[in-house]
């Protein structure tokens, strides 16, 4: 073909120029009107009290700053590690589709099976929340990862408990941790164990996978000086009514918990507040959208908790609440 026949006529060149300008203009308009997308990966499922609390506060706080696309990994129902890894993979695949501006996660499973293998050190900024006690095992902080670590007021809770049982018992400082055989609760127990050790206390753990075992464990726990009730998330066949009945029938030993939703079965609660996790995650996500680097936002922990007293159970246990507790603790039903 001749050279001159390949050359575009002038009107065609002009058309190409106009088309290019139009495309550039449309791209600019699209960029100007782009609404950020936040990809929220919850480790658990809808209906999990703690996760629902985080999600609710997250949604309220983030409001219309970004479009929140949620993916639930449902890790508490996983039968195997492979299931958890698949759930992490699925979250990643969805993230690729969503192309988010910021990734937000809650709880440990998301950190372990989603952030760590797929997102850490990528270009996408990540905010985690609800990771219990420590993040070193996940390699956090990273340049693109920041967040809020979930801690429980274990020490003040134990100090208060010791004050109370000191009046009831002349000796004995054995503590049992009754919880779920889950990633979260294992970590909780480990921290609890460290803290107890620092206080000169001896601790055991009963970590169960089903409700019947939990009921049995509860009955056994009455032999200890203090019972710490962990999470029920991950305990198959959990039955609230039955659990309440069990607690009322067998409770003799002072029981404590850091989880508000375990208060029906516990005498005293030093409970964490899920909303604090969601609110911080939302504020951090907004800061990241607005241009802050994740590396410039240090990790933080929750600072707020609440104190509860289950009057029914505490009365059955026949120990006297301190005046301070009477004045400061909230009454659970």
């Amino acid at each position, binding site marked *: 073909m001749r050279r001159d026949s390949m050359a575009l006529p002038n009107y065609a060149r002009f058309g190409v120029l106009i088309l290019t300008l139009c495309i550039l203009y449309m791209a600019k308009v699209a960029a100007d009107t782009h609404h950020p997308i936040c990809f929220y990966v919850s480790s658990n499922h809808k209906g999990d009290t703690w996760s629902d609390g985080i999600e609710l506060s997250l949604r309220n706080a983030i409001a219309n700053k970004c479009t929140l696309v949620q993916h639930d990994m449902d890790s508490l129902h996983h039968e195997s590690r492979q299931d958890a890894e698949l759930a992490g993979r699925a979250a990643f695949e969805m993230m690729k589709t969503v192309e988010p501006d910021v990734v937000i996660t809650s709880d440990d499973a998301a950190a372990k099976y989603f952030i760590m293998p797929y997102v850490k050190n990528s270009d996408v900024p990540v905010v985690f929340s609800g990771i219990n006690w420590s993040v070193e095992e996940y390699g956090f902080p990273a340049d693109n990862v920041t967040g809020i670590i979930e801690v429980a007021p274990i020490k003040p809770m134990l100090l208060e408990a010791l004050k109370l049982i000191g009046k009831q018992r002349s000796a004995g400082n054995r503590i049992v941790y009754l919880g779920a055989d889950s990633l979260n609760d294992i970590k909780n127990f480990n921290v609890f164990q460290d803290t107890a050790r620092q206080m000169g206390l001896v601790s055991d753990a009963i970590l169960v996978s089903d409700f019947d075992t939990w009921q049995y464990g509860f009955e056994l726990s009455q032999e200890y000086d203090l019972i710490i009730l962990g999470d029920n998330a991950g305990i198959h066949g959990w039955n609230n009514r039955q659990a309440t009945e069990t607690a009322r029938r067998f409770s003799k030993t002072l029981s404590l918990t850091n989880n508000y939703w375990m208060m029906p079965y516990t005498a005293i609660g030093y409970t964490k507040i899920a909303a604090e996790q969601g609110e911080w995650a939302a504020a951090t996500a907004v800061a990241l959208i607005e241009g802050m680097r994740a590396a410039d936002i240090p990790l933080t*922990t929750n600072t707020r908790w609440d104190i509860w007293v289950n009057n029914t159970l505490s009365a059955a246990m026949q120990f006297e609440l301190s005046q301070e507790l009477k004045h400061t603790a909230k009454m659970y039903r």
Partner: protein
Amino acid sequence: MHDKSPGAMNTHSRQSKPQLLSKLLKHTHRSQWIGITLFVLITIPAIIFNAHWINYEDLENQAQVEVTTIAHDVSERIGAMQTVLASLEGLYYISPDLGKGEFQIFSKNLLVNSPYITMLGKYESIARHDRQDIKKRMSDQGHYEFNLKEFDSQGNLKLRGDRAHYYPLSLLEPQLPSNLALIGFDFGSISGMAETLESVAQEKSMALVAFQDHWPGAANIVAFKPVYRGKQTPDSGNSLLRQTTGGFWVNLNISQLLDGISNLANNFNIKVEINHDGDLIPVYVRAATNLPKLYFSSLYPTRVFEQKWNSTDSAELVIKLEKPMGFTEQAIALTAFAIVTTIFVATLFSIHVLSQQASLAEKIAGKQNLIDEREKAQTTLNTVKDAIITLDPALTIVQINPAAVVLLNTTRSLAVGQPLSNLVQLQIETEKATILDIGQVLADLEYDGNPEYNVVPVGQSGDDFVLRLSVSSSQNQDGKTSGYVLVLRDISHERRMSKKLAYQANFDAVTDCTNRHYFEQKLESLISELRVNDRTHALCYMDLDQFKVVNDTCGHHVGDELLKDLTKKLKLLIRDADVLSRIGGDEFGLILINVNQEQALSLCDRIYQFFQSFVFSHEEFAFSITASIGVVFIDNTCANTNDVLAAADIACYSAKDSGRNCLSVYSESDERMTERSVDLSWLSRLQTALQTDQFCLYLQPVVSLSSGMNPQHITHFEFLLRLRDDDGNEVTPKQIIQAAERYDLMRDIDKWVIKNALRTVAELNSGPGGRCSFSINISGQSAADRGLKSFIEKQMKLNQIDPSRIWFELTETAAISHFSVAVDLITSIRSFGSKVALDDFGSGLSSFGYLKNLPVDLIKIDGQFIKEIANNPIDRQMVKAIHQVGQSMNILSVAEFVEDQETIDELLKIGIDFAQGYFIGKPQNVRDAIAQISKNPKAA
């Protein structure tokens, strides 16, 4: 004022405002103007000066109040900040292990209530060897990444290098992702801060520090308050320093602090500084946002208010409030209002004073006017020519003017106080036997208005002496008659003048016999009476023959003498009842009243015979004066005066036609009379035709024969005048011209022709006629009309005609008859580009001689030479001679009356330039003529 009538003084209230003002201004003396001006000149600056001070003091007071309010608000906030620090200090001593959870709960409410405290927290005072301890402590509190930090030059936080002492930030509220990294920031890394914090620790004081560089937010002042170990605070400086664990800090945002206070702060330019040992460190500058619009600000210094708040260390918070001063809009408006009001009041006052003065002056002037007016009235009475007598209601004379004294031949002293009837008695002019009852006349005034009577004083002699009496009454304020005024005017002279004028209207001044006006009035009267009586009369119309000779020979005064003499002698020939009138210069009319034809003819014959012997002598001259006499009998068959006069004119004209000095009696059957009558009818027909455009124009073609051109080519037309009678028959031009020339109507007809011909040429421009030229005839009478040239020019311009397309034809006889004016006219016409043709050339005998002096372009050879040219060698030679003469003078020739081809052939042989005649084309109306050339394929 002095020329006002007394009555005008009472109309003061009805005067318009401009009039009143004008009057006041007139009464205003120069000194008063100066006084008013001085008052205004002094008062207005005083108002402005006063307004200046009031405005300044007002602004000053207002600013003071505002500053006090602002200072109060700021003090409250500074106090609140100090309270916060004191609270935190107290909290610390209650719970030294203050965790971040408790601190968050405690500070939450503080922050909510003090939005200008944007951050607060705790700082630690640690030595180098305590670094690990604090790191662990902070990690236990959840700050797993805790490190000591400082800002690098870019404002990024970096790890703090090794130092002997640190002041790290350990608690922070509110904790946000954006400020969380500040935890661990070493306040001691800021220049001078280590010394400041050490100092406040030693002095147990509070430090105010302006943080500017990389500290979050802008316009911050951070207050530091130290805390110490133990429950009892040490006293000495060294102990304090040794026991301090750090302290609390509060971050004040100055902008928010000021925003939160009264809106009054917006009225000031605000500058916030920290005075640290005399060094002023600027913190915040804000311009006033709510300043009212100020005028003349340059006249006022900016007012600066300075408020200081001391911390317990050497630092001092200084807030400078600058208040620009100037005239506010309100002040300007009030000042302007005051000035306008002052001017208004001054004006009102001035008007009031001036009106008082004017009123006084007016009263004085009014009195003077009364005196003046009375004197004027008296003077008027004295000078007026009418006799004026003033009577009281009892008809006793109150006043009498000099004219009345003279008229009534009395004296003033005798007359005044006398009853009027004692002084004079009056008779009605027309009823001289009756004495006018003045008392009754005055009593009837109410009904008669202002009656007038022509009266004659009883005893006064002379028929012409007549007085016109006018009476009127005067009323007092109650409307009752207060007296009467009698005015007697001597109208004798008016009467005489009136009689004279009446005489002049009906009599000829020269001959003393009645004039034409009287004659026609009398004739009309007699004719109108014929309907009711059966009388017959006769009218004799006499036109003196050769009277002009007498005037020309001896002058007009001799002519007048002749007329007087003739009149006197004619009067001797007629009866007293007959009416002899001079009805023209040398024309007399005689109405023979109540005569039959025989008597009339007898009397007329007597007059005719008189003229046969009448000789008028003057000095050595003797003139035999005869007259052409026309006689008309008047009976009840005569319709009107005009007909009778026309008949008399016809008869007289007939007498003149008969060689003058004849007596001709009008008879309708007389042929001469008929002709004359027809002529007269032409006059009205032509006039009507001119007025109603009954004339019309025909065109006859003229072809060019010269230069071998085809004779059928039509390039020229001659306009010909036509008139149709009521029956539609065409009237011959000869008849029209003959009558028109007789009644001097040719000028009007020529103008009609020129006007309409040129308009027609203009209308033909767009068609084939636009290529042609046209001839227009001018009569001999018009040739003598000096206004014709300008008329032609005006019509040319009006119709936008190219003059070169128009030929004007003047007959040879007309040109010769009015030679000098004709030469002028021809020259003028040629000067604006038209051509002139000499028409009917050859009909006159001296044609060649005149031709030399007439600057014409063409000669139209008289048709009498053309008609027989083919057969008559003399005609041929004549035409040839004319053509040759014209050719030698560059004059083109036109042959008229061309009626056959043989004639054309002869003309071509001779070399004639143009031909015209029935063979070429008959006259046609314009439309047909032009249609002819447009159809003619040969037409050019």
